[in-house]
């Protein structure tokens, strides 16, 4: 079931009414059933994977807390990690690695004909496996006490607003909210309503309309270099609208039910360097890699070169996580290299003094922001292209066929994003995603009405699935 469908609106209306009239314990059981229905609505057979992941981590975490020796604790942790990664590896990466091996062996003169799997990638598998793994690792590290109530734990793993595309919640944040009664306040309802409206605006109006600009550019092997650069910028907004839109809706509907999910995007458009950008982008996932990969393979005493290696590894894994395709691996690797370069050059970069002058401050942020945006947008050629050969053709166009872009498309793009950029600017300025609430009533009314009718009249209603569902 996708958020931008009538099916979901009907589903949530029914769930919410029953939720409101139920007591805490019933609410949890009911939410668990609803979450399984939500997931099974797409393909009920894959519910078994969700259940296996849940069962393994539930029992393993209880064993970890029961046993005394570190060795045995580690053994159980490895069981959890291996089982989750096996599910992920088999369903998401089997064909990728098998085909890559086939090509590699063929280049050496060995020809094999491996069996390939022919089924759809289970929805949200990368999200819920990471979420359950983080739980077991936190239990192993002694950061949380595992819950004995299986149904509560199952709800933590499968909570439908964030089940298929995040945010990847930590047990430290979500589990206490599952275990304890939740309160629904006016503030949560207002914030939830705003986030839901903003989320649908980002998805249906921004992302799905920008797809009309992006798709032909990346499909055409003859696109010029200028078109590719433009296409990358537009795709950045598309994927941001798509993914942040999903997160906003997820957080909004969670707020309706009294839950607080973590903020997944902190206005990355206004990042002033690559490090700052990646701290603002897909926060739940990037912080997962930081906490469970980066910090697991070293400490503060690491040499600079080891830190660079760890940073590269994080971005490499980030690429691989996004999809079973070399394009994603290359995309992640480029980002890793760009990040390392930034780290190396950082001490030598000029520190522009603005002497408190606003125009200088604005200019500085604009220049730094533009350079940052450019350096994260350009690698998106590899993220968006369907295969490495096409991505390479697109890359070559940057110096072999620079060309121009049609001003009409550029104006269309600007018209599409102007309201979003304004809202993001307001939010980023005060580092408060509800800063809109402090604007004059008349301006807020205009913003809400504009967003509403942008969705209804100008939005793309082809029920496009969210891009991140396939990750």
């Amino acid at each position, binding site marked *: 079931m996708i958020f931008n469908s*009538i099916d979901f609106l009907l589903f949530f209306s029914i769930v919410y009414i029953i939720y409101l009239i139920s007591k805490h314990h019933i609410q949890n059981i009911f939410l668990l059933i609803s979450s399984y229905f939500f997931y099974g609505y797409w393909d009920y057979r894959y519910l078994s994977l969700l259940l296996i992941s849940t069962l393994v981590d539930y029992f393993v975490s209880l064993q970890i807390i029961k046993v005394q020796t570190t060795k045995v604790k580690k053994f159980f942790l490895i069981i959890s990690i291996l089982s989750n990664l096996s599910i992920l590896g088999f369903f998401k990466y089997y064909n990728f690695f098998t085909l890559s091996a086939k090509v590699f062996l063929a280049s050496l003169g060995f020809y094999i004909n491996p069996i390939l799997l022919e089924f759809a990638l289970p929805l949200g598998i990368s999200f819920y496996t990471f979420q359950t793994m983080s739980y077991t690792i936190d239990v192993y590290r002694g950061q949380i006490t595992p819950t004995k109530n299986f149904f509560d734990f199952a709800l933590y793993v499968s909570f439908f607003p964030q089940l298929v595309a995040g945010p990847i919640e930590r047990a430290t944040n979500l589990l206490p909210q599952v275990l304890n009664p939740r309160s*629904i306040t006016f503030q949560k*309802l207002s914030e939830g309503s705003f986030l839901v409206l903003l989320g649908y605006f980002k998805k249906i109006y921004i992302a799905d309309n920008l797809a009309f600009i992006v798709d032909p550019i990346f499909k055409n092997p003859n696109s010029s270099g200028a078109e590719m650069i433009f296409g990358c910028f537009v795709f950045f907004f598309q994927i941001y609208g798509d993914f942040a839109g999903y997160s906003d809706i997820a957080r909004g509907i969670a707020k309706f039910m009294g839950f607080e999910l973590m903020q997944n995007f902190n206005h990355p458009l206004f990042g002033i360097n690559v490090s700052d950008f990646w701290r603002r982008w897909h926060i739940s996932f990037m912080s997962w890699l930081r906490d469970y990969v980066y910090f697991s393979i070293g400490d503060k005493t690491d040499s600079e070169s080891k830190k660079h290696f760890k940073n590269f590894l994080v971005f490499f894994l980030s690429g691989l996580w996004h999809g079973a395709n070399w394009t994603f691996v290359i995309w992640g690797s480029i980002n890793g290299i760009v990040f390392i370069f930034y780290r190396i050059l950082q001490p030598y970069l000029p520190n522009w003094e603005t002497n408190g002058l606003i125009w200088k401050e604005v200019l500085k942020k604009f220049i730094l922001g533009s350079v940052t945006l450019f350096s994260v947008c350009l690698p998106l050629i590899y993220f968006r292209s369907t295969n490495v050969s096409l991505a390479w053709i697109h890359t070559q166009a940057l110096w072999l066929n620079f060309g121009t872009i049609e001003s009409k498309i550029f104006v269309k793009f600007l018209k599409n994003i102007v309201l979003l950029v304004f809202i993001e600017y307001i939010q980023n300025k005060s580092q408060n995603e509800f800063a809109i609430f402090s604007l004059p009533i008349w301006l807020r*009314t205009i913003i809400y009405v504009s967003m509403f009718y942008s969705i209804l*009249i*100008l939005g793309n209603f082809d*029920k496009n699935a969210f891009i991140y569902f396939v990750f």
Partner: protein
Amino acid sequence: MLSFISYFKSTPAFVFALGFIVCFETILHFIPNLYYLDGKGAFFTYYKRYIAERGEENYDILMYGDSRSLSLRGFARSEAFPYSLYNFSLPAAGPWYFKFFLKKYLLHHEKPKLVIWAADPQQFSLKKTMAFHDNPALWNEFKHRLLNLFSIVETWEQYEGKELFFILKEYIPHSLLSVRHRQGFESILNSKISSLFETPSLVRENLIVEAIVKESYGQINLGNFFTVPNIREVALQEKENQLKGMQNTEMNLEPLKLFLDYTQSLNLKVVVLNIPRLKEFNQSPYFKDVVPQMKKLISKYPQASYLEFENMEYDLDLFSESIHYNAEGEKIVNQEFLDKIVPKLYARIEEDNVKK
């Protein structure tokens, strides 16, 4: 339980926005002929609905069919044509709705003397909405055919089970006029400021459609109305695709049976008219099989009879893309319709009693 009044008091901008939206949607209900703002396809459906509901002119013969039968011209009563004919055919809507569209017409008009069923038998295979369930883009393209033609109550009557659920959930957003006419609003919002005071281009196009349909009593030939490039290679390709599609097409005479049952209950004469198609289609196993079955079904109904054109097989040269006639095809088919078919329809009307 929270007090929603207090909630609204705490968020005045939401209340104002909501108030604005309610007012705007209400005002839209009082704006007449809003459907002139829509795209041609949606407008066309609305216009046919308007004719069926307006109750001004009673027609003697009504034709229900598909995008090809839409090419047959209707006519007013005159010395040459003592009985009038209105063509209610619609493209890409299947035949399931015919019974209900006729029912709608009868609510506002006198009973006609004869009704023509002119849907291509290939259309019988189409389930009501099933073809659209897994194809949102196609549904978005064609949903106005089913949603704009009937009210929600009339829609409810036509479906059951999974299809009822599908159509009703699609009706929910469609009940907002801003969504229903979004194509028109979208074109206004995207137009240049300088052109805001001019008649919107969609309105101008729809006025042309209206003039054509008014003059021809419901007819419009899609083959030459839309500028389909008349390229033989494209037509040949389309022909092959259609022939391939026919191999997997299931036959379902249920919609015809439904229509015949209904007209029998009204004691209303029906002619099932088979109209010319591409030669290769007509010679395909599908048509060789379906036509005798149609005739067998029709023979069970005393008020119904079967009629076909003398020449049922046209060459590709007479089509714009193998389905719809080009200008030449349109001319030939209408000539035969007026010269040969209409006299037979008149004779059928003038038979004293329905056949026993």
